[in-house]
Each structure stands twice: as structure tokens, then as C-alpha cells.
């Protein structure tokens, strides 16, 4: 018991850090679902490309010697910009090339298209990095190395705090954008009723493209933060993280922006803190390897009682 209390604060911090990354990626799934009723399974690769763009930017700054002279937060912002722009643009391109031509096709068709885009992006990145760097694993330079030791049991690495801080700022900015700005309102209007929105002289195609840009950009920012937090990236990092983030989106209520944030944080905490508690409660019978099982059991329980997710609307078929 004492040991558990000892781990708990550290474990919560780890869960939060992971949860914020999940939440940011989940936002992309949920925004695009909200507007298109389409699960953009290529989003995990948009995240991955963002991680590569951000890391390449940091490596570029490093190779030119700027990294040592500029303050770390500035370097992070430059890298985030690269990740956001690259992923946002990629999101728009994916929509234009892989989804728009089949927008009125049966639902399974864009799904297949998304899988194709995923494979294409994984191998494209592998090919490009392979030719360019002769290795498709990239190691991001460390930006924030200091560790704040609060108690011997609770060590707060600065980079975790940066991830949490940056994610909070980005999500806050997204929230203001969506609720206050003209285009944010247009996105929500299109999500609710495309035809009526077009009567308000809203160009539905532009709004969809914008949604893909914003959703993709959040994914790219998450990718860059992910790279600074975990250092190692490869073209396949999107797969597991994408599944987790999608789960978070469903958990929170797909289509709901606050839902994605709540779902991401909850999943992150369940995976790290929940499983540690469960391990102690069962005297080690349930080990860490069951953390995904725990997360999905809780997902299923929540969906049984609240099929729309925690903050989602009750599922209603549109007539």
C-alpha cells in the first residue's frame, strides 16, 4: 500500500503526459468525423509525418548550429510550426485526393481509401528517409533535459511539462477558434447540416478542407511533441498510437471536441495509473501487460451504458 502511494503521483504525471498526446491526436479523428461522418484512418500517418517534419526541422537547426544558440522554447515553436504546416497540408491533400472524389460513395469505400493512404505514407516516409538519411529511424535532439525532483519518488522531467503545457495551449487555441471565430462556427454548422450551411453562403468544400487542415495540424503538433518526449520515431509509430487515439475519441464521444480531450486524458491515466493500482489490488496477478486490456474493458463498459461516449450525443441515424 505504501509502495502504491509512493508510485501514484509519478504515475499520474506519466498518464497525463501520454493522455495529452492521445487527446491531441484524437481531436483530428473527432473533428473530421464530426464534419464528414468519416473515420479518417490515415490520420495516424498524418501524425507520423508531423513527427518527422518536426524532427527534421530540429535536426536541421542542429546541423546549422542554431539549436545551441537559440532558446529551447523557440526551437520547439519552430519545430511545431513545421509539424503543423506539414501535417495540415497533408490532411488537406488527403481529403482532396483520397476522399473528395468518393464523397458520395458507400461508407466502406473511403475506409479502403484511408487504408491505402496509410500504407502509402508509411512506405513513402520510409523510402524518403531511407534515401536521404540512410536510416528510417530518427532520433530527435533533446530540447529540455532538466528534471525537477520534487520528492525522490516524484521526478518531473521538464519535457513532460512542456508536452502538457504545449498541448494545453494548442487545445485552448483550438477551442477559441472553434467557438468564437467565423470559420470555427462554419465548421460546426457544416458538421450539423451541410445543406443549410451552404444556404448561409458557406462554401462546404472549403470548410471540409479547413477541418482537415486544423485536424491534421493538431496531429502534426502532437507528432512533434511526441518526438521531443520519446526521441525515437520511425514510419510505423502512427499505428499503435493511432488506435489508442481513435479509442480515446470514441471513449469521449466521437464528433465531440471536448470529448476527445476527456477521452485522451482518461485513456492515458487508465493505461498508466489504472493498471498500477489494479496490479497492487490483485497482488501482481494482473501485470502491466494487461494495460490495454484494462483500457478496452473500460471502453466497452462505458459504451454499454453510454453508447455515444462520455460527452457524445446519443447515436441518432440521420434520416
Amino acid at each position, binding site marked *: 500500500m505504501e509502495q502504491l502511494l509512493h508510485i501514484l503521483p509519478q504515475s499520474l504525471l*506519466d498518464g497525463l503526459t501520454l493522455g495529452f498526446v492521445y487527446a491531441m491526436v484524437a481531436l483530428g479523428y473527432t473533428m473530421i468525423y464530426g464534419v464528414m461522418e468519416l473515420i479518417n484512418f490515415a490520420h495516424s500517418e498524418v501524425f507520423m509525418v508531423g513527427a518527422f517534419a518536426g524532427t527534421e526541422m530540429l535536426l536541421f537547426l542542429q546541423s546549422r548550429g542554431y539549436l545551441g544558440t537559440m532558446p529551447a522554447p523557440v526551437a520547439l515553436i519552430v519545430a511545431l510550426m513545421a509539424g503543423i504546416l506539414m501535417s495540415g497540408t497533408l490532411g488537406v491533400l488527403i481529403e482532396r485526393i483520397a476522399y473528395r472524389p468518393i464523397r458520395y460513395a458507400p461508407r466502406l469505400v473511403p475506409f479502403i481509401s484511408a487504408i491505402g493512404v496509410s500504407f502509402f505514407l508509411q512506405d513513402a516516409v520510409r523510402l524518403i528517409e531511407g534515401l536521404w538519411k540512410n536510416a528510417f529511424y530518427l*532520433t530527435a535532439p533533446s530540447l529540455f533535459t532538466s528534471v525537477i525532483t520534487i520528492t525522490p*519518488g516524484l521526478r518531473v522531467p521538464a519535457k513532460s511539462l512542456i508536452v502538457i503545457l504545449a498541448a494545453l495551449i494548442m487545445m485552448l487555441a483550438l477551442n477559441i477558434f472553434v467557438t468564437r471565430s467565423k470559420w470555427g462556427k462554419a465548421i460546426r454548422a457544416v458538421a450539423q447540416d451541410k445543406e443549410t450551411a451552404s444556404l448561409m453562403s458557406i462554401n462546404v468544400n472549403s470548410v471540409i478542407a479547413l477541418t482537415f487542415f486544423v485536424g491534421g495540424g493538431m496531429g502534426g503538433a502532437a507528432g512533434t511533441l511526441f518526438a521531443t518526449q520519446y526521441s525515437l520515431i520511425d514510419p510505423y509509430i502512427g499505428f499503435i*498510437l493511432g488506435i489508442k487515439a481513435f479509442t480515446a475519441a470514441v471513449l469521449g464521444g466521437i464528433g465531440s471536441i471536448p470529448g476527445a480531450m476527456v477521452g485522451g486524458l482518461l485513456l492515458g491515466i487508465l493505461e*498508466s495509473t489504472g493498471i498500477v493500482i489494479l496490479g497492487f489490488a490483485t497482488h501482481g496477478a494482473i501485470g*502491466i501487460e494487461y494495460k490495454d486490456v484494462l483500457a478496452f474493458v473500460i471502453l466497452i463498459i462505458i459504451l454499454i451504458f453510454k453508447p455515444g461516449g462520455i460527452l457524445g450525443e446519443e447515436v441518432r441515424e440521420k434520416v
Partner: protein
Amino acid sequence: MQLRCKSLTFFLMAALVLVVVGLVVTGCAPKANVIKVATVTPLSGSQAAVGESIKLGAQIAVEEQKDAFTKLGFALQLDPQDDQADPKVGVDVAQKLIADKEVLGVDGHYNSGVAIPASEVYKTDNLTEVSPANTNPKVTDRKYLDVNRICARDDEQGPFGADYAFNTLKAKNIYIVDDKTTYGAGVAQQFEARAKADGATILGHDGITAGETDFSAVLDKAGSAKPDLLYFGGMFPEGSLLLKQMRDKGINATFMGADGMDDPQMAKIAGNDVIGAYYTTAAGDINSTPEGKAWADKYTKEFNQQPGAYAVYGYDSMNVLLDGIKKAIADNGGKAPSRLQVSQAVRATKDFQGISSKVTFDDKGDNLYAMLFMKEYKTADYPPAVIQSGTAGQYLQK
């Protein structure tokens, strides 16, 4: 009109007959003068680099032996295949190779988890397999005539590591993590058994998922148990992140892994945290012998890159295979041997001098001369220094 239809039918029938005859002729009666040997390694996906280096090692062997085979009246060809490190793909490739009667031997696979199901396919036609890198015990414990390996086994690697940890590093309290794969869990289990037998306390044994990047949950738990040493059964992408995150969390336990850590990326990912980390490997330092150094130079010159740790094993495996085929040809009076004859000849390999080690197969297909090495990163540079080596055979559990 009527006439045209008839002549079209006739034409189609004739074409069909030709195709069928062609298939029968080429399928059943191979041109006696071609012998193919295959490499089956991951050439795409995340393990492509190591798979490629094994293939290139084997390619050197084939090129060296081409003339010898030409003198015997055979055209030797290399048939490189990609198993994508995926058991399903591995089985598909195995079936393809079985169907191609010119293929007389396989140099592969890289992953034990792929080799085991694939060898069930090879067995159906006694297609012999010499593995450069499969360390899982089950690969040879099934005692298939056609399955051999020149590297050491996990149940030798685990105990080798455990003995070193307990006796030399004096680690009494040990925490174990594995990646739940056949390989990772296998090594970790063997390590745990030996460490317990030696007298160490196992504080916990947890699993992670390959492909994940955040190991804070398992590390929070492991850290609170305050181990002297953390043993990891798995591959380098997870292993190096585990090491790095462990140090970030201020856990100072010694890190030890198995040959899944044997990759230049390890030091790049973990940076200076890699200093003081240990791993056991079946692949020695190729530059430690003059023959090895000469071979590495040749490889570097040929392909303009450093050989990976298992490249020379790909080379040695292929040579063992080709040596067996040559013997089988001689035994068969200079004619093309059957796959069974090749399997028997390869299994009979005795005191074959390879670059990495001597090769003598026991009745299971394990190499009695396989070597094991303990390496420690003294600096953050790859490859780390060998600090202890031993013949793996002494750890064979009878």
C-alpha cells in the same frame, strides 16, 4: 460468322494445350543445370536493415562459389525473398519456395517467430534451412532433419546473461521485462529460471507491447521495487527507449538485454544513457579476428556500408548450405541431388570452418561451436566491447 467462331475456339484450345504442356514440362522436369539457394529475411518493414545485411552476406558466398558450381555443371543462383518479419508472409514465401523445385536450400529466417511456422512448410519436402539468427529453442527442439542453425540458442543466451549478472555483476535483486514475443518472452524466461537457480531474487516480471513508446507504467512499478538490475527480453527500439526512460526516471539499476539490442541505433537512441548497459549476443565482434576483418573489408568495399552484426552469419550459413549441396552432388554421382539428400548432407556438417565460428551440427541441428558474447557499452559508440565470451554448448540443457 459460324466459321470464325469455330476457328477461334480451336485457337483457344490449342493455346490452352500449349500452356498446360508448358507448365507440365517446366514444372516437373527442371532444367538439370540450375540450382537455386534462397535467403528469406525481412527486406521491408522495420527490420529491413538487418535482413538486407544477411542477404548481402549470403550474396558474397554465392558469388564466391559460383565458379565451383559451374565446374560441377550447375548454374548457381541466389533467390532473395522477403518475409517482412511476419509469420503469415513467411509461410507464403515458404510455400512459394517449396513449389520451385530448383530451390535446394534456404538461408534464413531472421525471426524465430517466422521461422517456426515456415519450417513446417519446408518439412513437407525436406527443404533444408540453415538459420543465421534464430535463437529460439523451439526452432531446433522439434528435431526436424531440415532445420539447422549456426548461432546460439536463447536458452543458452538467457543463462549466460544470468550467470554473468549474478556472479560477475553481483546483482541480487532483478526485475524482468519482456515484449511478449516468442523471442523476447523466451529469452526472459530462460534468464529468470537461471537467475533463480543461481540464487537471485526476481522482484517482478512484466510485459510491454512491441511498437509502443511509452513505458512509464512498467517503469514506475519496476522503479519502486528498487532492483539492482533490469533485464529486458526484446528488440532494440523498445529496449533503448526503456533504458532512456528508465534513466530519465532516475532508476539507476544496471540494464541488461539479449541480442535484440545488438544494433547501432541503440546508442543513437539512448545517447549517453547507453554507457554501462550490457547485452548478450550470439554475434561476436567480427573485427576481432584477421579473417573476420578481411571479410568485413570485402563487404564494405562491395556494398559501400558496414556489415550488420548478422551479415557474417548470413555468409557462413550460406557456405554451410553450399558445402552440403556440393557433398550431396558428389554423393549423387555428380547429378542434381534431391532435397532429402541435401538435408542429410547439411546435417552431417562437421568441423566446417566459418568466419564467425566452426560449425558442427548435433542431432537437433544446433551448432556445437556456437559462441556467446557479453558486451558492455564503455562509451556511447557501437559496437561495444566484448567483455566475456564462451562456447554456448556448455549452457545447453540436456
